[in-house]
Structure formats: structure tokens, C-alpha cells
């Protein structure tokens, strides 16, 4: 176990009549970043608020910095919570907002002012202390809220959808401020988001919240290459599911027979997933697959093809994108094959 940081064990929370969250266990080490992803309404925010002590929990423990805070009120937990749109106290100046936690602790005034200045400089707003919150732009307010949170010297920073309320152009500004502050002050950082790209970009590990419990906690690369279950794979937006079975080391399905990738133990009836970027289309007049349509995305172009009655999304080279109705050959990279038990 790590020293410091956040350890959540066996957390159970009811939300009114709904089933709520159960058996939630995970940890975030000091200076680590963990992102909880889940559909809207899955209880991500409730989880954060429970860690902060703003929502009562039924069962389980919350340990912050090796202190059991399960029974403590929010102000004694050492975990600062920021709303999706954090609010600055409108009756205080920017500097007074950042000084809020320091003044509560009666830190000497000279030190308070020095610290406020350091933090405002760290978020790129060195001259903003005397300003009123309402004179700031959205991204600036967000950065002040981060500085105010870090001023409390929390063990854990809890961020609810930290970037999703911001214009895309402001996200980088706030993300840079956030990562800079974390690098300097090393709190454990737990954020929730519905945006997988944001999670992958910001977090060391991603925790997938499905049906009220954590389905998988893994670093982004591992999560995207080796989802634990079909439910997680579908949540991640993976396409190209093909039912089949494993027999003597090979996965047999309507597209053919492929060797089971190394390091995977699988047997019996399974669902195979061929990631979109593990299938290439190669134009070929005598090809075995027909192009149904072309999908253009910012990240690249893919084509929808059909072979042996199976529809697949495949990657197309930008230089030679086939047209609908043409025939192509498929080149499949079997080492990227994902094999998962079917959902009953």
C-alpha cells in the first residue's frame, strides 16, 4: 500500500430508491491521477461527493493520507472537492478566494499573502489578486478555483468533470494549470468524467464505473487493449464484435480462423473484438469484402465493409480510400484480437 493518497474500500451508497453504488474499492497514490469514467447518471459525482464527505455512505471506508476519515465531516478530511463549475465566493476578491483556507487556519498574514501570490503565479494569474471574480473569464475563474483548492494543501483533490464545462479552447489552459499545480504540490487527484479522451489524456489510470460498481481499473493503454469484459468494451465504444469459439489455440469465426494472441487463455464460446485499427482495407477488384460506406472522422477515415455476412468497421489509408460498392480485401492483425466471454 502507498503512503498518503486516497484508499477507498468496499464503499456502498444508496441513491433514494435506485440501487446506488456498491463494492467500490480503489486507491489513488500521492501525485497519481485516476479518472473515473461512466455514463451520465452512473453515480460518478455521488462517488466523489461521498469521498468528500458531502454525501452519507452506507458501508465502507475512506482513508485519506493513511487517516481513516470515514466518520469525519468534510472540513476535516483533507480532500477538496471542485464542482464541474466551481464557484468563486462572489463577496471576496480573487486573492481572498485563494486565501480562504489559509485564513481559516489562521496562517500568519504575511505568509498567507506570499502563498497566494505563489499560487496565482503558478496558475498564470500573478496580477489578479485584487480583482473581483465577476471580472474574470471562464478559464481564469477555473484556474483561481484550482489555486484556491491547492492552497488548502489537500491530500486529495476531487474534480468533477473538470474540463467539460469549458470551451475546447480553454481546456488546454486549465489542464496545463492543473497538471502544473499537481506536479508542484503532489496531491492525489481523483477526477470523474464522461469523456474517455479527457480521461486518457489526464489520468494515469482509468476506473470504469458500470452498473453501480467498478468494472475495471487500469492504465489507459491496458484498458483500451485489454478490456476485462464485453460490457467495458462496449462502454469504450469498441465495434466489430464477432461471435466464435476457441478450438486448439485458434479463434474460429465467420471471418476465418485466427491464432489466439499470446498471453490470453481462452476457451469455448466467446465474442471476438477486432479493433477498427487492427483491420486494414486493401483495394482489390477480386476482394472478398464489399464496401458499404465511408466514415470520415477527425482522427482518420474508416470504411464500413461486409464479408461473409459480417459487418466490420476497418481502417482505410487516406491516400486510397475506396468508394461504396467497391470490393476490397481485408488485412486483419490477429495479435490485436480481443476475446471476451459473451454477456449472458
Amino acid at each position, binding site marked *: 500500500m502507498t503512503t498518503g493518497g486516497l484508499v477507498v474500500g468496499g464503499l456502498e451508497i444508496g441513491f433514494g430508491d435506485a440501487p446506488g453504488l456498491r463494492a467500490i474499492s480503489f486507491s489513488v497514490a500521492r501525485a497519481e491521477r485516476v479518472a473515473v469514467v461512466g455514463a451520465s447518471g452512473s453515480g460518478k459525482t455521488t462517488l466523489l461527493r461521498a469521498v468528500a464527505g458531502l454525501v452519507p455512505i452506507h458501508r465502507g471506508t475512506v482513508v485519506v493520507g493513511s487517516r481513516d476519515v470515514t466518520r469525519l465531516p468534510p472540513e476535516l478530511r483533507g480532500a477538496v472537492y471542485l464542482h464541474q463549475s466551481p464557484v468563486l*465566493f462572489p463577496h471576496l476578491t480573487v486573492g481572498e478566494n485563494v486565501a480562504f483556507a489559509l485564513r481559516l487556519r489562521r496562517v500568519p498574514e504575511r505568509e498567507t499573502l506570499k502563498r497566494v501570490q505563489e499560487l496565482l503565479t503558478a496558475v498564470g494569474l500573478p496580477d489578479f489578486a485584487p480583482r473581483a471574480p465577476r471580472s474574470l473569464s471562464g478559464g481564469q475563474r477555473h484556474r483561481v478555483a484550482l489555486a484556491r483548492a491547492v492552497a488548502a494543501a489537500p491530500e486529495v483533490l476531487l474534480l468533477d468533470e473538470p474540463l467539460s464545462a469549458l470551451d475546447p479552447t480553454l481546456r488546454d489552459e486549465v489542464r496545463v494549470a492543473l497538471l502544473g499545480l499537481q506536479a508542484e504540490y503532489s496531491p492525489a487527484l481523483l477526477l470523474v468524467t464522461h469523456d474517455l479522451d479527457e480521461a486518457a489524456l489526464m489520468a494515469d489510470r482509468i476506473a470504469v464505473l458500470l452498473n453501480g460498481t467498478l468494472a475495471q481499473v487500469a492504465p489507459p493503454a491496458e484498458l483500451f487493449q485489454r478490456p476485462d469484459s464485453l460490457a467495458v468494451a462496449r462502454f469504450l465504444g469498441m465495434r466489430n464484435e464477432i461471435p466464435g469459439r476457441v478450438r486448439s489455440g485458434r479463434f474460429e469465426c465467420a471471418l476465418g480462423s485466427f491464432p489466439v494472441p499470446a498471453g490470453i487463455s481462452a476457451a469455448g464460446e466467446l465474442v471476438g473484438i477486432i479493433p477498427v485499427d487492427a483491420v486494414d482495407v486493401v483495394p482489390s477488384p477480386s476482394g472478398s469484402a464489399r464496401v458499404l460506406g465511408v466514415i470520415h472522422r477527425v482522427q482518420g477515415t474508416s470504411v464500413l465493409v461486409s464479408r461473409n455476412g459480417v459487418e466490420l468497421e476497418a481502417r482505410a489509408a487516406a491516400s486510397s480510400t475506396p468508394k461504396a460498392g467497391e470490393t476490397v480485401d481485408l488485412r486483419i492483425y490477429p495479435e490485436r484480437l480481443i476475446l471476451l466471454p459473451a454477456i449472458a
Partner: protein
Amino acid sequence: MRSRLRLLMAGVVILSAALPFAVLAVGSVAGEWRWPALVPSAIEGDAWTATLAGGTRLGPALLYSLALGLATGVLGTCVALPVGRAIAELHGWRRHLGAGMVFLPVAAPPIALGTGLQLTSLSVGLGGTFQGVLLAHLIPTTGYLSLFFVGILSVWDRRAEDEARTLGANPRQVLTRVTLPMLRPSIAAAAALGFLISWGQVPLTLLVGRGRVPTLPLEVFGYVQSGQERFAAAGALLLALPPLLALGAARLAARDVDVVPV
């Protein structure tokens, strides 16, 4: 055509709001004013000179009413804020019941309330006293201001308070450093409203004060009933001025202090 009509309507609205105060001003100095002259033929300043010289009951009544109004506004706000907050924290039918209960003192006709309370106030030795009338004025005031705070606090954004908690503030610190400062404009408005409820009150003062509590409205009422129109107009103008000043001040102070969302 449309803009002409709008101009006419605006004229009517502005005139109907402003003319009455001119009428009061003229009425308060009107000497001989025979029908059908539109303005008085003689000016008589005695209502004002006598009042300034302490020769009418208007001056002392003004001070008395100011004191009563300020006390009602301040005490009413102090009671209504926690009551309103407690009701706003209720849910479902309980909140409706709580709001309905504090609506009672607002909806009950003051004359009916006063008749029911006069002898009760006498029996506890408060009849005809400043304190008794103050308590009587506090009845509709606390009801009205509680409703006012229920309205504000039921839609109150708790995010600032939540964040203050996790930043290390205990509930008392959240109250004194976040909630009350953020509510300051509403608290000022509530105190002003409480002042106004007391300032214009007639029936409760009449009944609980038993004619011994000389507020400005009662003196004006007396001047009207005895046909002394000049003095009644002067008194009415005195009654109108503080509320208008308060309205003006509220407009100036209306730099909205809302929650600043990030």
C-alpha cells in the same frame, strides 16, 4: 402609429406614478383653493413650519415610526432568516406545510388579528406600549420575511457552501464567512421590507397600541378624519419619502452579487 401609442402609454404610466407626489406636495401647502381652480390661489406653509418648530404631532410621530420600523426590520430579519432556512431545508409536503404556516400571518386581515390580540396583549401588560406594538408589527413581518427567505433559499446554490466545507470550513465558519456574506443583499432587502411593513401599518397599531402609540400613519389618519387636508398631505408626503429613498438606494445598490459560476 404603434410608437405613438407606446409613447402615450408611457406618458400615462409615468404621469400616474409621478403626479401623485406633486399632488401631495401642492396639497401640503395649499391655502385657499376654490373650485374649480387647478392650483391653490394661496400658499400656506403652516403644515411644514409648524412641524419643523415642533408644533404638530408629525415630527415626533416620524421619529417614533422610524424607531419602530427599524426595530421591526432588524428583529423581523433576525427571526425570519433562520425560520426561512429551516423551512427551505424541508422536502415535499412538509415544505408546503411550513410555507403555508408562515403565510398565515401575512394573509390574516390585520384588523381581525388585532381584535383577537388586543385583550391578549393587555393581559400580559403590553397593550398600549412600544414593545407591544413592536411585537404586533413583527407578526405579519416575520411571516412575510420568512416566505421571502424560503423563496430565496429553496433555490439557493449550495455549491459555494460545499466547496467551503471541503476547503476546511466548519458549519459555523461556512455560515459566517460564506452564507451570510453571500446573502447580504437579501438580508438588506429583508430589513427594508420589514421596515416598510411596520412603517405603513395602521390597524395593528390602532388596536394593540390603544391609541396611545403615536405612529406617523395614525397621526395622518387622524388629520384626514378631522378634515385637516393640508396637514394630512404633509404627513402623507413624510410617509412616502423614506420608502422612496429606500427604493432609490436599492436601485443604486443593485450591483448584483450573484454566485459567480466558473
